[in-house]
């Protein structure tokens, strides 16, 4: 296995799904069973990914492999496209392809009987292609290209059942909201390209490292970082652009699992990971605050939602906020770790909910559900394991990653004094455990909400059950580290993922990230010794606190919903405003509707009116004035100019009558006139 082979495999992995898309979309109308081709493609992709990941993580674990070609070149501009394979890349490849594969399998049963079955698989194909492009790219432009392409596939899949107005609305909303973030990202890219004349990450970073700043100012560097982060705000559904993700649940549930939980929404986090080294302390603080606030906001909303998928959607937003926050506080490795573990358990949760929805004939309101534990044991068990993982209960993967992040926030608070972030972080841990168990209890425990549907419910077929089992297995700690309470010693964090050294000027770094504080340990770069030590130092307090909070959350969930020791209705009545705030998603949709959307529409109407009546009015007015003017001119023409003409005519008539006498009708007379006149002319114009 050489590097070239690895690169070629990566390229094959990238383009196979595109082939699947192209073939399925074009032949799907003719060939009924075309979707098998897409399944075959994704299977092949997965196998190749496992091979590539295995070799990368064993043979080339400390090398970075890449290759590029010139796409566009003119004058001094040269735009290269290329791929870059490092450890993050192959792990992401594996995550994306595995979940994509499982979702393909799951969809076989879930989407059965849909009239656009082939097209659905084709869309999954193009999504996989675009997502792999984001993962593999080594430059910002290609990142942006695939960024937009996942946006497209997300648009198509959310609006897959476009007959429903809510579905097509949601697709449009997702695309447009993402576009807002993309504009920021695009501006960030422009800033970097205008200064470094390249899109390549590594080249840009080496330039920054040499002290060459955009427009020679650290402000612009911060601006570039925050603008690029805006792309992540859109894609990873961070406040204030998070509103699209809950609506995106209009799409088929397997799609929600694949795109809106596990992979695409994590692309924002992935982007931040790639950008990590060029983030200044200001940019990082912004990112941390946005992430922390988003996770809190989403968690509070998730408390009261009654739609099984919406609860999961808000929990996704909340967890994504965690990851973003984690990057903001410098816990690079844990951000990525949480991305991976979250991808598995959240995909499992979504597919589990899909299994429930499928069994209950597309009923997804919590009040219709309940008591399904006995009817659907496999689904219940896998759902339980994933719920434990997301709640951060020991022995699960979620515990490991979440714990790391919380320790990071504590360390951050201790080192910088921003205590708000750890406080929000721990509150969210409590809330997460509570609402997740609320969901679990209301779905699987208690009494059936809708007896008729309940009676028809049954456990899903193996194509749907198998992905659940596999994904819940991956939510157990053993896949990541042998030590169930600390991930640091596991292969995942110890061998594969290491925090890169930041390249921004010293003056714009956090105190604890100064280069004097870094050192090289076992070929792995430790970006901040102080930070590491502080994290170790707060590790156990953080762990104990988070487990405690998780436990409290679970306990309250049981008290509220299982044992009904506390009357929920009474409680909600006593805090009605808060409840309404949460239930109505902090009224953000309404606010956006009233301001931005209606504002834009009103503005467009005003401008259109302006165009029609003012700009065009001036044009038509000019025409009208010309017309009026011309009628006056016509009057003058008729009575004065033409009058003169007529006068002339009358005069000439009179003269003519007089002259008529001269007309003898004889040729001779005329000849005389002619010749005399000629003679006069000759004499008058005689040359001297």
């Amino acid at each position: 296995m050489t590097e070239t082979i690895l690169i070629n495999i990566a390229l094959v992995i990238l383009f196979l799904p595109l082939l699947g898309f192209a073939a399925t979309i074009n032949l799907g109308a003719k060939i009924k069973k075309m979707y098998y081709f897409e399944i075959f493609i994704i299977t092949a992709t997965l196998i190749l990914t496992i091979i590539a990941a295995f070799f990368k993580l064993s043979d080339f674990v400390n090398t970075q492999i890449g290759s590029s070609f010139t796409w566009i070149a003119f004058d001094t501009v040269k735009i290269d496209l290329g791929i870059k394979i490092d450890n993050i890349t192959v792990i992401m490849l594996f995550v994306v392809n595995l979940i994509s594969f499982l979702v393909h399998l799951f969809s076989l049963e879930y989407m059965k009987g849909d009239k656009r079955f082939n097209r659905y698989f084709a869309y999954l194909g193009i999504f996989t292609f675009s997502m792999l492009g984001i993962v593999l790219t080594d430059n910002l432009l290609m990142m942006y290209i695939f960024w937009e392409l996942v946006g497209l596939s997300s648009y198509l899949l959310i609006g897959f059942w476009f007959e429903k107005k809510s579905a097509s609305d949601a697709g449009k909303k997702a695309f447009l909201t993402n576009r807002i973030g993309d504009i920021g990202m695009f501006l960030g890219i422009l800033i970097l390209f205008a200064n470094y004349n390249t899109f390549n990450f590594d080249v840009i970073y080496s330039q920054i490292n040499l002290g060459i700043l955009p427009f020679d100012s650290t402000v612009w560097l911060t601006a570039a970082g925050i603008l690029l982060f805006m792309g992540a705000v859109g894609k990873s559904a961070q406040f204030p652009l998070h509103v699209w993700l809950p609506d995106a649940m209009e799409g088929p549930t397997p799609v929600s699992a694949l795109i809106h939980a596990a992979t695409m929404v994590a692309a924002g986090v992935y982007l931040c990971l790639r950008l990590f080294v060029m983030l200044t302390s200001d940019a990082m603080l912004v990112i941390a605050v946005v992430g922390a606030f988003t996770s809190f906001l989403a968690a509070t909303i998730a408390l009261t939602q009654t739609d099984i998928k919406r609860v999961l959607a808000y929990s996704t937003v909340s967890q994504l906020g965690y990851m973003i926050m984690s990057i903001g506080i410098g816990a690079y490795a844990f951000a990525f770790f949480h991305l991976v573990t979250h991808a598995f358990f959240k995909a499992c949760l979504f597919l589990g909910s899909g299994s429930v929805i499928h069994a209950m004939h597309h009923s997804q309101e919590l009040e219709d559900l309940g008591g399904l534990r006995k009817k659907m044991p496999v689904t219940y068990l896998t759902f339980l394991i994933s719920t434990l993982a997301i709640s951060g209960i020991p022995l699960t993967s979620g515990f490991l990653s979440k714990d790391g992040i919380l320790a990071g926030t504590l360390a951050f608070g201790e080192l910088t004094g921003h205590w708000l972030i750890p406080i929000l972080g721990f509150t969210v841990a409590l809330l997460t455990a509570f609402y997740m168990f609320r969901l679990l209890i209301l779905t699987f425990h208690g009494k059936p909400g809708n007896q008729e549907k309940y009676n028809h419910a049954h456990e899903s077929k193996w194509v749907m059950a198998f992905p659940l089992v596999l994904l819940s297995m991956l939510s157990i700690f053993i896949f990541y580290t042998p030590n169930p309470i600390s991930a640091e010693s596991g292969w995942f964090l110890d061998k594969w993922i290491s925090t890169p050294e930041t390249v921004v000027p010293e003056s714009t770094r956090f105190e604890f990230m100064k280069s004097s504080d870094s050192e090289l340990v076992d070929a792995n770069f430790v970006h901040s010794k102080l930070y590491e030590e502080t994290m170790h130092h707060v590790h156990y307090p953080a762990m104990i606190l988070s487990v405690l909070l998780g436990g409290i959350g679970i306990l309250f969930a049981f008290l509220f919903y299982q044992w009904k020791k506390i009357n929920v209705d009474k409680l909600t009545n006593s805090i009605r405003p808060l409840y309404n705030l949460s239930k109505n998603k902090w009224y953000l949709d309404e606010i956006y509707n009233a301001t931005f959307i209606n504002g834009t529409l009103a503005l467009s109407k005003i401008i259109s009116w302006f165009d029609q009546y003012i700009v065009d009015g001036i044009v038509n007015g000019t025409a009208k004035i010309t017309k009026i003017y011309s009628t006056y001119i016509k009057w003058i023409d008729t009575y004065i100019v033409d009058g003169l003409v007529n006068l002339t005519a009358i005069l000439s008539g009179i003269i003519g009558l007089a002259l008529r006498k001269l007309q003898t009708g004889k040729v001779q007379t005329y000849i005389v006139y002619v010749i005399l006149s000629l003679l006069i002319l000759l004499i008058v114009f005689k040359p001297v």
Partner: protein
Amino acid sequence: MAQVGLNHFLIVSALLFSFGLFAVVTRKNAVMVLMGIELILNASNINFIAFSKFGNFAIDGQVIALFVIVLAAAEAAIALAIVLNIYKVFSNVNVDEIDNLKE
């Protein structure tokens, strides 16, 4: 009397032209009118040839004169044919009576 030069020829031609015009204007008989026209044409021919000798036209004047003669011949033929036709219709060739153009 000065040395015979251009002017002498021109004066001859002018007089001839006037006579011709006089014939055209005054005579009733169409054939006489035709003769007047012949005089006018000859007058112009004299001018052409005189200018050919004294002016800047070299031999070209003579060529034009030649063409005028040919035209005159053609004109005479046609004109006489017309006169014959007029005679057939009006039984005379007096131009002062043939004034249908009037009114």
